[in-house]
């Protein structure tokens, strides 16, 4: 076997040095022609992205959770259109693997289509799949194209492609190493049959998404061939090289403007799949020096016997989410922009597991890395003129729910509900609140479907869909609120349900500069309640979140949000979909009182929080805050802090003697440094 090693993967992320020919071509580009051509690459990719969304079938593809990219002949990513930045950096690992291992056999020819979804070879997790095509002009390889997206079915032991009960990769369904799936611009029929077989639960999603990837990659290939015909191969070769040069130069310049230093963040979660327990899901030490930085994950908990592990390049992909949204937002999407960044991954950790590990929920264990990088980089940048782009972490809940069965249209389905993941709250910003229901931290440009679209597509009715009050972390600038939706089975006798999440006991994001994290997220259902009867009986026929948690609609059953597959009968509650809010920024007592009043009136903040956290006097009858009284309350609260606070050294002395209950340290590793306690054994 030739599974790439960690060192090979990290090396593949670095840009291949320019050949003398490439350098000559790049130097020959004239001012103006270069800028126009860069825009042309963006236009080609945007066309591809549009085609991709319109031709995909599964919810994630339709929502735009995808990326379309072009590469130079060596496999370095030159530009992309997204969608999601998860794949903005790492596809070169796969293309360089193909070049190294398949040039002789099976060969790389014009019209070939390559494909993979196996994270062991360079992806995120197996629902994320990529079609890759080489671009030839006059029998010369001039580049590559790729289309990547998430399909919510892989034929795993549970529907939806992200089985929370998987303990090894052998339970995760289809895992294809890089392979040639087509030639002469056509997908092989035996491959389509393979996808049908793995995709029995949702055949249309699986085979249509396969074709959408290939169609998209080919459209970008066609446009690049047209560009070669019009401008010449030398021009395109030079263009790609200069784009790589400029992406790296831009990234290094950005880093050079920050103070050198060491920035740290440690985050936790409460489960690995079905295993409850405390995990240090990220211990990040970010050392920034000159125009580069090293991100070290030493101290992160060991790998575990669940699907909540991530191969190292998947972690890098998750960092790209935040970095491209907030730090490199004005740079071309290119693997070259990560050239100044090096990584250290501890062996046999949950962020660098051994090959047999299940990783289909890599997106869950990576929430720590996503939150930590926001925290560390905001600290590194706050002292600079980029301070206004410093933020608290997004909620990074990723509370994804899967439903499966036979729909009201008599079609088999297994899909993820795109609404909650695409309506998370943004982290509080350095000059304003995080945006409410801003989007999906994994896919900045993903779109939440309308309630009517969900009800039309799936056998469900949604009695309420609203902002979730207090779901953003409190702060001078609070985290944006997430959302709440009530889902009930409709039209069909039953369906299957499962949910991917943690954060029901401990929330992962650390807040920043004195703010608070968002609340935890329970799994909630209404016990023994027929929803159609409830809607008939409730006054006005209108339900909301407040009425639900106050118990007005019946007895609530609560459990962790992440749940393995179960059947839900018709007219019963599937669950309450909860989309996490962002973390808070700054001291809540510094929050503008008028903003609290607006939040109270809008139902985004509760009276309890206004009084207990923000220390304001709220008159519920008149819906007004007494500003004068509130200022006095805040003054008293600050004085109380000074009188009750303990000097650090004195506090730490006692604090160090404590330890969490032994029974919750089952997957943490050694206490407190989270080293492996033994090998992870998977038959």
């Amino acid at each position, binding site marked *: 076997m030739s599974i790439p090693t960690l060192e090979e993967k990290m090396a593949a992320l670095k840009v291949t040095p320019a050949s003398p020919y490439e350098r000559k071509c790049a130097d020959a580009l004239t001012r103006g022609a270069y800028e126009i051509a860069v825009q042309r690459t963006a236009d080609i990719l945007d066309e591809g992205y549009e085609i991709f969304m319109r031709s995909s079938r599964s919810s994630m593809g339709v929502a735009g959770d995808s990326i379309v990219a072009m590469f130079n002949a060596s496999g370095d990513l030159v530009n992309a259109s997204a969608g999601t930045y998860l794949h903005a950096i790492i596809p070169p690992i796969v293309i360089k693997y193909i070049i190294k291992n398949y040039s002789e056999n099976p060969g790389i020819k014009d019209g070939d289509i390559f494909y993979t979804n196996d994270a062991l070879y360079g992806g995120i997790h197996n629902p994320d799949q990529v079609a890759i095509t080489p671009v030839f002009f006059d029998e010369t390889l001039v580049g590559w194209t790729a289309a990547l997206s998430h399909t919510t079915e892989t034929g795993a032991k549970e529907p939806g492609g992200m089985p929370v009960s998987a303990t090894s990769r052998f339970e995760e369904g289809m895992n294809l190493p890089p392979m040639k799936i087509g030639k002469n611009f056509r997908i092989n029929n035996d491959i389509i049959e393979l996808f049908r077989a793995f995709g029995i639960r949702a055949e249309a999603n699986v085979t249509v998404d396969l074709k959408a990837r290939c169609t998209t990659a080919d459209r970008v290939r066609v446009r690049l061939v047209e560009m070669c015909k019009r401008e010449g191969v030398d021009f395109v070769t030079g263009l790609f090289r200069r784009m790589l040069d400029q992406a790296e130069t831009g990234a290094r310049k950005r880093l050079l403007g920050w103070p050198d230093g060491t920035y740290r963040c440690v985050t936790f979660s409460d489960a690995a799949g079905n295993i409850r327990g405390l995990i240090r899901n990220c211990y990040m030490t970010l050392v920034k020096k000159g125009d580069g930085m090293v991100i070290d994950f030493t101290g992160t908990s060991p790998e575990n016997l669940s699907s909540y592990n991530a191969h190292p390049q998947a972690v890098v992909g998750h960092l790209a989410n935040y970095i491209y949204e907030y730090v490199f937002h004005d740079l071309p999407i290119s693997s070259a922009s990560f050239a100044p960044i090096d990584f250290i991954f501890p062996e046999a950790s949950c962020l660098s597991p051994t090959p047999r590990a299940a990783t289909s929920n890599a997106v869950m264990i990576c929430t720590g890395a996503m939150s930590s990088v926001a925290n560390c980089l905001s600290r590194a940048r706050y002292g600079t003129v980029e301070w206004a782009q410093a933020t608290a972490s997004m909620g990074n809940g990723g509370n994804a729910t899967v439903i499966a069965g036979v729909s009201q249209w008599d079609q088999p389905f297994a899909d993820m509900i795109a609404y909650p993941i695409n309506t998370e709250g943004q982290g509080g910003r350095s000059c304003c609140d995080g945006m409410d229901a801003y989007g999906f931290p994994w896919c900045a440009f993903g779109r939440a479907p309308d309630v009517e679209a969900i009800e039309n597509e799936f056998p469900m009715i949604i009695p309420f869909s609203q902002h979730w009050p207090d779901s953003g972390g409190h702060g001078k600038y609070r985290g944006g609120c997430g959302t709440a939706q009530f889902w009930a089975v409709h039209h069909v006798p039953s369906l299957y349900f499962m949910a991917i999440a943690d954060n029901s006991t401990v929330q992962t994001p650390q807040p920043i500069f*004195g703010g*608070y994290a968002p609340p935890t997220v329970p799994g909630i259902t209404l016990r023994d309640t027929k929803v159609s009867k409830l809607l008939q009986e409730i006054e006005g026929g209108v339900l909301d979140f407040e009425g639900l948690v106050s118990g007005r609609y019946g007895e609530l059953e609560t459990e962790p949000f992440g749940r393995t597959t179960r059947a839900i009968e018709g007219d019963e509650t599937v669950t309450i979909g909860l989309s996490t809010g962002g973390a808070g920024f700054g*001291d809540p007592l510094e929050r503008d009182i008028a903003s609290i009043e607006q939040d109270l009136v809008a139902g985004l903040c509760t009276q309890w929080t206004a009084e207990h956290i923000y220390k304001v006097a709220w008159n519920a009858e008149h819906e007004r805050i007494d500003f004068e009284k509130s200022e006095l309350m805040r003054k008293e609260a600050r004085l109380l802090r000074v009188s009750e606070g303990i000097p650090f050294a004195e506090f730490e002395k006692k604090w160090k003697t404590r330890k*969490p209950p032994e029974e919750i340290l089952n997957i943490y590793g050694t206490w407190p440094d989270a080293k492996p306690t033994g090998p992870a054994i998977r038959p």
Partner: protein
Amino acid sequence: MKQILHIGDNLNIDLDNEQWVCGKCDHNIGPASENVKYGLLVKERDPTEIHQPLISGEYNFAPNPDWIRILEFYCPQCGLQVETEYLPPGHPITNTTEIDLLSLKSRLASGELLLEAGHLKLNEGKA
């Protein structure tokens, strides 16, 4: 005029004296070469005091106090909440920010970095 670097919301470094300084009351918190938390007051909070349990039972929208605690760090003079950290009981407290002061002062002296309104700006001509 003092060289003040804003390093967090209401947290500064006095570069001349190499001290952490409260951005609200100018209290001198301690040496900027050390963890800023050493100079702050600490209060441990049960997370249910901050995140209201909305329903009964183990999973109620508030973190479980046996698993996680909230540490609040205050300015000893004015009570500003400078930092918070969510940690399991007894877990080492994080030193989140260590600025390389030697490098910073050297780069400011050479003109590679400029200090404008408390924030650093790269002087591209000198970088």
